[in-house]
């Protein structure tokens, strides 16, 4: 019996000791600098891995100690690990919420502890957040408009497939797109209908529009799923040659479709840049500099 107790004790002491030593050296070396906590929603998705890597890269460059916790898509786990970061007295918290509502309690705990909170990619529906950093969907919509205008030599008829009405993505992408198109007097948006970000719906809505409009030069869909659905409808109507389709999000299928020449373009988010900008903003917050409550992150047009 005694041997076993000693065995357990040894294993635990060694494990904790090894981890502890690593940490102690780190702590003493960087005690002077800033300590920022980053709570990511998951690391099982390349988007959020890029986000984390971007943040880590920037933190290293700025000499900031970045403590990262991963919620594995579990809102309860995220709350626990945010509380752990609060215990560690981080100077600023960067949170990429699993869920905008569930994260509010954790943000309120941070507020109570006087730790400023920044949200990334997904926002929070409560608590005090000093800055939100997310893709600039308005700018993305405008990029799509400019691309289509160039493709059509600034003259033609365009269809807009909208996302779920009322969602911020659909609103912002539509706003940017319509504002962009207005700058070209000879381009006209002849139809805009919601297809709810859904591939099947994108196809049926497009089928209907194809029936009623004999002259269409381009389609802008608020996301790739709808764009890919629309491409199917256009192909079935045998009008692929005359219609240029542009999507949004750069999902794998869409990027493949762009390579194959079926989809003209899609607009990609830059998660790595999002992470970098979050750390930069956190540094400003920690140094009591003013930051905007929303920092848009530029997007990238993918055409090949």
């Amino acid at each position, binding site marked *: *019996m005694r041997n*076993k*107790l000693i*065995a*357990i*004790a040894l*294993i*635990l*002491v060694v*494990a*904790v*000791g090894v*981890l*502890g*030593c*690593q*940490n*102690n050296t*780190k702590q003493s070396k960087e005690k002077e600098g800033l300590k920022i906590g980053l709570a990511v929603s998951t*690391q099982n998705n390349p988007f959020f891995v890029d986000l984390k890597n971007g943040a880590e890269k920037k933190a290293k460059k700025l000499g900031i100690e970045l*403590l*990262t*916790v*991963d919620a*594995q*898509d*579990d*809102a*309860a786990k995220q*709350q*626990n*690990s945010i*509380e*752990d*970061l609060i*215990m*560690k*007295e981080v100077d600023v918290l960067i949170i990429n919420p699993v*869920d905008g*509502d*569930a994260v*509010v*309690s954790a943000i309120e705990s941070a507020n109570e502890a006087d730790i400023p909170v920044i949200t990334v990619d997904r926002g929070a*529906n409560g608590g005090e957040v000093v800055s939100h950093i997310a893709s600039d969907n308005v700018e993305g919509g405008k990029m799509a408009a400019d691309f289509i205008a160039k493709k059509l030599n600034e003259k033609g008829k365009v269809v807009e497939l909208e996302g779920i009405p009322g969602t911020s993505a659909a609103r912002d992408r539509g706003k940017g797109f319509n504002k962009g198109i207005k700058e070209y007097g000879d381009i006209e948006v002849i139809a805009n209908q919601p297809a709810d970000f859904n591939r099947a719906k994108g196809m049926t809505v497009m089928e209907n529009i194809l029936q009623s409009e004999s002259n269409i030069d381009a389609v802008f869909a608020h996301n790739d799923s709808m764009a890919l659905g629309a491409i199917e409808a256009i192909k079935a109507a045998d009008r692929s040659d005359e219609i240029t389709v542009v999507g949004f999000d750069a999902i794998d299928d869409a990027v493949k479709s762009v390579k194959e020449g079926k989809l003209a373009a899609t607009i990609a988010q830059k998660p790595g840049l999002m992470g970098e900008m979050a750390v930069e903003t956190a540094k400003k917050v920690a140094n009591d500099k003013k930051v905007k409550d929303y920092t848009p992150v530029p997007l990238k047009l993918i055409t090949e």
Partner: protein
Amino acid sequence: MDLISRFKSGIGLIVLVIGLSFASDYFLTVHNLINVARQISINAILAFGMTFVILTSGIDLSVGSMLALSSIITASLLTGGYPIFIAILAGLLVGTLLGLANGLMVAKAKMPAFIVTLGMMAIARGLTLDYSNGRPISGFDEGFRIIGAGHIGFIPIPVIVMILILLICYIILKKTPFGRYIYAIGGNENAAKLSGINTDVVKTSAYVISGFLAGVSGVILAARLNSAQPTAGTGYELNAIAAVVLGGTSLAGGRGNIIGTIIGALIIGILHNGLNLLDVSSFYQSVAKGAVILVAVFLDRRSKRN
């Protein structure tokens, strides 16, 4: 034997606490220890129910999904304007009924517990997703949130609930005939039956307790997050089983106790908290948790063979 195995996990816990106190300045503070207690409350309550089931040599893989369904049902009634009392009762009832279904299939229909609760795990998750359309339900009255976020003195309410349930489970297992029957069935079901114990009722009750406590956890989780998540509780059954096994309860049934389970839950919770404080990535946290479980079972096996 009982005393020694309890002693063993207790020693592991103490060593862990001492090690972490040296490794991180933030660990051994009253604030952090209360933080840990609140963090483990959900897993501990699930693990208490799991202890009953495992003592009868069964297993309950459906606790995480039952938690999610209870939490979604309670949340939807709350946001639908029903009184808090009714909403909570409905959540608890859902867990209890699913537990009853598990128990009847295992005890009466003689189906293997592993398969029954695996099926229930899928059913409860499917119902949760269907009922919620896959969307979280959020925004409850302050009165309900207190259950998850409130304090009495400086002790969080989930911790108080956990301690109350611990005491009740301890008394049931140690001081009542029902508790003795649970051990007797896990030790030797035929012998228990021959000595006049209604084994079907006792076994079914173990699953009912597990389902009921999954309901309790679901209500607390919703209150703590101020949101019921359709994906909540995914993988929690394994954490609960891990806590029970770390606490020295034998998966073969008949041996173990509830004090071991709370110690097991503490070890897992402190491990997560400590590794977060030490800035260890969640991937390695998972490795560490797995390693500790394997070591514990290895030592348990060896001590049994001796």
